[in-house]
């Protein structure tokens, strides 16, 4: 089996020993009606409504979507507009907290008797992939193709982030229970949990948990970014190749994040939907790096202030890790379901780029052996046929090419432009 390439990064896992702790209740939360791939939800509440923890505040009839709940009790202040990272907008429910954290009376463990009721419960939980892509879980768990393996992503290959690691070490039994539930209700025969070797404690604890479950295998994966990328993970755990235009299910695989399955376990036990999540707060502008349990919708500035970050000195704020994370323009923006970290940096300037010297490092760094240098040339001459031959749509934007480029060119960014151009030509 060919070994996939990648880049070796400094881990910066400063928070690996920082136990998760709750963030003091924020005064205001701002909950966007779209935090997932798919249709945005419509608000179910209006200004001045009183809401309680776990109450559903947004939903839609669309299949490709997930309902939205509040993690605080209080009063709806206003319905405003949120600008998403893709430039589009969606409604946003702003709630002033009352500090009581009253639990919504309808919150109770779901009754599950078969696959249908399980999938319905997963949808009601509001779960979307917690690793970053935020794909609605009930959609992912209802593939048309037969699935023989559940792959659990515990790689956490991005620098700084340790929220998955804390989940695996603080409550490995939740991870295990979540995996068993999915295997059981979807009748999948086996599961593989992939973890990078730089997390020996997580590997040890989960191996212990899995001892009485022969259908669950723990795979130690080499510490090489992007080990946690879906295609890379599937290849390295099962040797299967997700072909161009395919979904993992086409190869008989469903991939879920460790934190997602652990959440499922908690939801099935308590009935409390996705209203809060664990995030790592770190970066060189953060004095006290930590792992915080925060209500979804908490303003980023509240999280950073708690971790001792002087926001005025920061020059870059990120949702997620430094390789694939998204830059935040407004510190009042909320923590989203998909955020596994909030990072703040004082000195993270984009370096000046110089001409390409044709060194080929973007090709050798690419886990999929794509040719970014040739894609850039094809894009410059607006050659969609050449982009097709270069398999541009395979690019997963992991950023290895940009990281490796000695000329400091925005290689991955150019790939994305090439993808957009190719798609616009194809749809003509």
């Amino acid at each position: 089996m060919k070994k996939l390439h990648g880049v070796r990064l400094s881990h910066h896992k400063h928070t690996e020993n920082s136990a998760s702790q709750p963030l003091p209740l924020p005064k205001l939360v701002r909950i966007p009606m779209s935090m997932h791939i798919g249709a945005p939800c419509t608000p179910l509440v209006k200004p001045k409504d009183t809401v309680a923890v776990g109450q559903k505040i947004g939903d839609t009839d669309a299949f490709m979507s997930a309902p939205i709940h509040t993690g605080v009790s209080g009063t709806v202040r206003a319905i405003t507009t949120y600008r998403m990272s893709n430039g589009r907008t969606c409604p946003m429910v702003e709630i002033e907290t009352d500090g009581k954290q009253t639990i919504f009376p309808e919150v109770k463990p779901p009754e599950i008797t078969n696959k249908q009721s399980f999938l319905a419960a997963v949808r009601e939980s509001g779960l979307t992939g917690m690793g970053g892509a935020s794909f609605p879980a009930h959609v992912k768990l209802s593939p048309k193709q037969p699935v023989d393996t559940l792959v659990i992503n515990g790689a956490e290959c991005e620098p700084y982030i340790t929220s998955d690691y804390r989940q695996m070490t603080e409550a490995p039994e939740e991870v295990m229970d979540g995996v068993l539930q999915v295997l059981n209700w979807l009748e999948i025969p086996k599961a593989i949990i992939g973890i990078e070797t730089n997390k020996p404690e997580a590997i040890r604890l989960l191996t212990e948990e899995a001892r009485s479950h022969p259908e669950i295998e723990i795979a130690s994966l080499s510490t090489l970014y992007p080990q946690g990328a879906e295609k890379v993970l599937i290849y390295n755990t099962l040797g299967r190749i997700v072909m161009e235009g395919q979904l993992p299910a086409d190869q008989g695989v469903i991939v879920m994040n460790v934190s997602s399955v652990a959440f499922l376990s908690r939801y099935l036990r308590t009935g409390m939907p996705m209203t809060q999540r664990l995030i790592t707060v770190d970066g060189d502008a953060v004095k006290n790096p930590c792992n915080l349990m925060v209500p979804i919708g908490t303003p980023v500035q509240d999280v950073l202030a708690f971790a001792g970050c002087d926001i005025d000195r920061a020059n870059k704020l990120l949702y997620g890790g430094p390789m694939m994370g998204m830059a935040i323009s407004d510190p009042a923006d909320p923590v989203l379901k998909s955020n596994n970290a909030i990072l703040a940096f004082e000195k993270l300037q984009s370096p000046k780029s110089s001409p390409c010297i044709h060194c080929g490092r973007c090709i050798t760094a690419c886990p999929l052996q794509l040719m970014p240098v040739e894609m850039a040339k094809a894009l410059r001459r607006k050659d969609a046929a050449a982009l097709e031959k270069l398999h541009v749509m395979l690019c997963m934007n992991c950023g290895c090419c940009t990281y490796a480029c000695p000329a400091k060119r925005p290689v991955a960014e150019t790939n994305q432009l090439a993808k957009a151009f190719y798609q616009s030509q194809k749809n003509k």
Partner: protein
Amino acid sequence: MASLFTVSPSPHIRGNLTTQKIMFLVILALCPAIAAATVLFGLRAMLLVVFCGGISVLTELICQKLMKKDITVSDGSALLTGVLLALNLPVTLPLWEAAIGCIFAVAVVKQLFGGLGCNFANPAITGRVFLLLSFAGDMTTWVKPFYYRSMGSGMLSSSAGIENLDAVTGATPLASGDADLLSLFVGNVGGSLGETSALALLVGGVFLLLIGVISYHAPVAYLGSLAVLELIYTLASGGELTAVPYALLSGGVILGAFFMATDYVTTPITGKGKLLFGIGCGLLTFVIREFASMPEGCSFSILLMNLLTPYIDRLTMTRPLGAKLVAKEESTNG
């Protein structure tokens, strides 16, 4: 909120390697060869290296000023071109001729084609070939190592009077075929500054391989294919087997294989492409040496292969993981 934040696409961190670092690492790797040249051919060798480096940097600076482009001489690429060209010159070459070579390499071969990354041929090699065709006599006047011991104090600044020395030899060992292998290996023979000591070049070349600045493909393919061809030729013509190592150690093959055939800009980008490039160089060097009128074919072979690089690149595209074949569709369309 007073502060403004940088908003840019991911990734937000970059590796430490820069173009400038790469260039200076290659120059560092050439230092053993420069030191060997200085020991063998005297301080004038060092002078020629510094002079060529300086003229090349100055040429690039003036070109960029004239063309109103960003000044990028600090990236080290012009300096590297000058140093490489110097190592391809005989120690006795008049400085003004060396300067013309540098100006041609940097101004014509590199800057006129768009500067760093845009030239299709290796500037140092093209500069050398230009000088060889322009000043054939001076470019093929080789002195024996340590010739300077028999000269007075004037040897640093001038090449006048060298014609009268009995140290002058008309040919490199490649042409005369009269050196022993050990002399060839350490460089105790006549030749260009940097090509005589295989040992010093190998030290630098292996250093570049180990730190990952160059890959093994082109050097191994070049030296390997040349060795195989020479072996077959020697066996077929009934010569002595020492002809094979002799062919590898004499002339500019080692310098070419490790420092010219590995130039990023003018050689193929994938490993497979680099292998093809190296084999092509080996084949052309062999053909020129054995069947053409010129004794040395290294520069010409690399230059010719530079021209084929875009085609090799097209033939050796990678097959990405998960890629569906589109070749069939294409052939039916065409």
